[in-house]
C-alpha cells in the first residue's frame, strides 16, 4: 500500500521536477519564461503523436524534448532578439501552445496510448522497501535525478555555469567581460524548453498515456512556482517537486478514503488543493523580502540590448 502510494507520488512529481529544473536554468540566466505550460503541452502533444506514428515511446520522448525546445525558440526570438516584454511573450507562448497542441493532437483523441515501460535494474530493484521505488522506474524518473545532479554541478562547479549565473545577476557586467549574453540566454531558454517538453512527454507517455486537450492542467504554472519555492536551487526543486506531487496524489487518496468512510467532501474542494497549496507555499517563501532578494537572479526579466 505505502509503496504503491510512493510510486504514484513519484509519477506525479517527475513532470513538475523536470519542468522546474529547465525553468531554473533559464531563470538563472536572467530570463523569465512564463510559457512553461505552453512548452509542456507542446511536448506532450509531440511525444504522443510521434509515439503513435512510430510505435516507439522512446522516439516519442525524443519528439517531446525537440517539440518543447523548438517551441521555446519562438520565445527566444521575441524576447532576446526583439527584446519584447518577457511576461507578455511567455503568456503568448502558453496561449499558442495550448491552441497548437490541440490542433496537433486532435486526430489522436481517444486513441489508447503507448506507455513508456519501466527499466528495471535486476539486483538493485530487489532491495526491500525502496528497491522497486528507486530502481524500477521509467527513463524520465532516472533523467530527473541525473538532471538534478548535473545541473547542480553545472551551475555551481563549472566555469560555464558561473558565467551563466553572472549573466543572470548582471548582464551588463557580463557583457563587458566579453561573455556572449544573448547566445548563452538562447541556450538556457532552449534547455528550459527541452526540459518542459520532456515533462510533457512524461505526461502523455507515462502519467496518463493518452492525449487529452489541456492535459497539463496548470502543471507548467506550478513548476514556475516551484522554482520560486526552491529559491533557484536544483536539490530544493527535487524536494519541492515531491512535496507538490504528494499534495496532488494525497488529495486523490483523500477522495477515495472519504468515499469509503462515507464522509462527503466535495471532490472539487480536494481538486483545488494543489492550487491552494501552491499559493500558501508562495506566501511562506516570499514573505521575507530580504531572502527573496538575495536568491532571485538580479537581472531576471529585464531586457538586454547590447550597446556598441
Amino acid at each position, binding site marked *: 500500500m505505502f509503496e504503491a502510494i510512493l510510486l504514484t507520488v513519484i509519477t506525479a512529481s517527475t513532470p513538475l521536477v523536470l519542468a522546474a529544473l529547465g525553468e531554473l536554468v533559464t531563470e538563472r540566466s536572467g530570463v523569465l519564461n*512564463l510559457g512553461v505550460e505552453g512548452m509542456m503541452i507542446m511536448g506532450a502533444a509531440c511525444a504522443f503523436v510521434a509515439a503513435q506514428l512510430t510505435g516507439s515511446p522512446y522516439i516519442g520522448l525524443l519528439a517531446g524534448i525537440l517539440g518543447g525546445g523548438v517551441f521555446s525558440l*519562438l520565445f527566444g*526570438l*521575441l524576447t532576446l*532578439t*526583439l*527584446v*519584447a*516584454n518577457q*511576461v*507578455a*511573450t511567455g*503568456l*503568448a*507562448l502558453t*496561449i*499558442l*501552445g*495550448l*491552441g*497548437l497542441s*490541440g*490542433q496537433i493532437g*486532435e486526430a489522436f483523441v481517444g486513441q489508447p496510448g503507448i506507455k513508456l515501460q519501466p527499466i528495471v535494474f535486476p539486483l538493485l530493484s530487489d532491495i526491500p522497501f525502496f528497491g522497486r521505488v528507486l530502481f524500477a522506474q521509467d527513463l524520465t524518473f532516472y533523467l530527473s535525478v541525473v538532471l538534478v545532479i548535473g545541473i547542480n554541478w553545472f551551475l555551481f562547479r563549472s566555469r560555464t555555469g558561473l558565467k551563466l549565473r553572472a549573466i543572470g545577476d548582471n548582464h551588463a557586467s557580463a557583457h563587458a567581460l566579453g561573455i556572449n549574453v544573448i547566445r548563452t540566454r538562447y541556450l538556457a531558454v532552449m534547455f528550459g524548453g527541452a526540459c518542459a517538453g520532456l515533462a510533457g512527454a512524461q505526461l502523455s507517455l507515462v502519467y496518463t498515456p493518452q492525449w487529452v*486537450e489541456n492535459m497539463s492542467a*496548470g502543471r507548467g*504554472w506550478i513548476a*514556475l*512556482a516551484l522554482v*520560486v519555492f526552491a529559491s533557484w536551487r536544483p536539490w530544493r526543486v527535487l524536494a519541492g517537486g515531491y512535496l507538490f506531487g504528494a499534495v496532488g496524489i494525497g488529495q486523490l487518496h483523500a477522495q477515495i478514503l472519504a468515499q469509503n468512510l462515507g464522509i462527503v467532501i*466535495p471532490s*472539487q*474542494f480536494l*481538486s*483545488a488543493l494543489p*492550487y*491552494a497549496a*501552491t*499559493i500558501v507555499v*508562495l*506566501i511562506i517563501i*516570499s*514573505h521575507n*523580502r530580504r531572502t*527573496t532578494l538575495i536568491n532571485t537572479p538580479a537581472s531576471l526579466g529585464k531586457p538586454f*540590448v547590447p550597446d*556598441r
Partner: protein
Amino acid sequence: MRIELQKRARVSPLFSILSPLLALVLTLLFGAIMFWLLGKNPLSALYIYFVEPLLEIWSLHELAVKAAPLILIAVGLAVCYRSNNWNIGAEGQFTIGAITGSILPVMYPAWHSPMILPLMLILGMIGGALYAGIPALLKTRFNTNEILTSLMLVYIAQLYLDWLVRGPWRDPQGNNFPITKTFQIEAVVPEILSSSGRAHWAFVFAIVAAVALWFMMRFMLKGFEVSVLGQSERAGRFAGFSARRMVWFSMLLSGALAGLAGISEVSGSIGHLQPVISPGYGFTAIIVAFLGRLNPLGIIASGLVLALTYLGGEAAQLSIGISDKVSRVFQGLLLFFVLSCDTLIHYRIRLIFAGAKTAEVKG
C-alpha cells in the same frame, strides 16, 4: 547574418499605428498558410473566418456579445499592465463576479423588482474586485508574485463554480443538469435592439468603461500616476506616488471590471449559471489589451477583432469542418506578432551580414 537593434531617439509615431496592423496582416498570412496545410482553400477559409461574420446584422450582434466581456476585462488589465502589475487571473475574477452577481436571482427567484439587476451588477463587481484583492493583498503584504497567485486562483474559482452548480445551487427541476434556475426576466441584462439580434447592454458598459478609462489615463492625475509607477517605481516615489496603493488600485479596478463582465455574460448571454461560462475570455483579454497597445480606445478595436476570431472559428467549424482550436492558434499568433512588431516602435532593426560586419569593425 544577424539582427541588430538600434534604439530610436524618439518613439516612432508611424510604427505606433502601423505595428498592430502589421501584426494583423502577418497573422492572416500565417493563417492562410495554416489553412493551406490543413488542405483547405486559404482564401475562402479566410473569407469565412474574417469576412462572412460581418455581413449580416444578427452576426454583428453576436460580435458585440463576444466583444463586450473582452473589452471590459481588457481595459482593466491595461491599467494593471501599464502600472506593472501582472494580473493574469481575470478569468477567475470573471467567474467569481458571475457567482456573486448571481446570488440574488438564484436565492430569490421570486423577487421581481427593477432593483435586482443593478444590485446584481454591483455585487458582481464587488465579487470580482475582492477576488482580485487576494493577489493584491498577498503582493503588498507578503511580497508574493501576483502572476502565479492570480493564475492559481483561476483554477480554484472554476472548481468552486463547478461545485456550486452541481451541488447547492443546482436547479431541482433541471433534469439533473448541472445548471441553476433560469434567471427571472428582471434579472436579465436587456438587449439593446431585440428586434434584430442578441447584443445586450454589456457592450454599452464596455464602451463606457473604455472611454472613462481613456479619459482617466489621458487627462487625470491618476492616469499619470499609473504610467509613472509603471515605468519607474523610483521616479514615482519621488513624485509622492505609492506603488503599494497602485497595486490595490489597479488590481481592484481590473477585478471589478472582470466581475462586471462575468455577471453581464451570465445574465445577458446565458441566463443561468453552468459549469463553464467562458470560452477563455479572461485569457483572450490579455491579447486584446496588448493588441490595443494598452490604450483603452485601441482596446475597443482590438476587442472587436478578437471577438471576430471566436465568431469566425464557430463559422469555419460549421461550414468547412475546421476545428475551433484554430481560433486559439490565431489568437496566440496574433499576440506573438503584436509583441514582435512593437519592437519596431522603439528600435530600428538592421540586418547585418557577415561581410558588412568586418567592414564595420575596421571602420
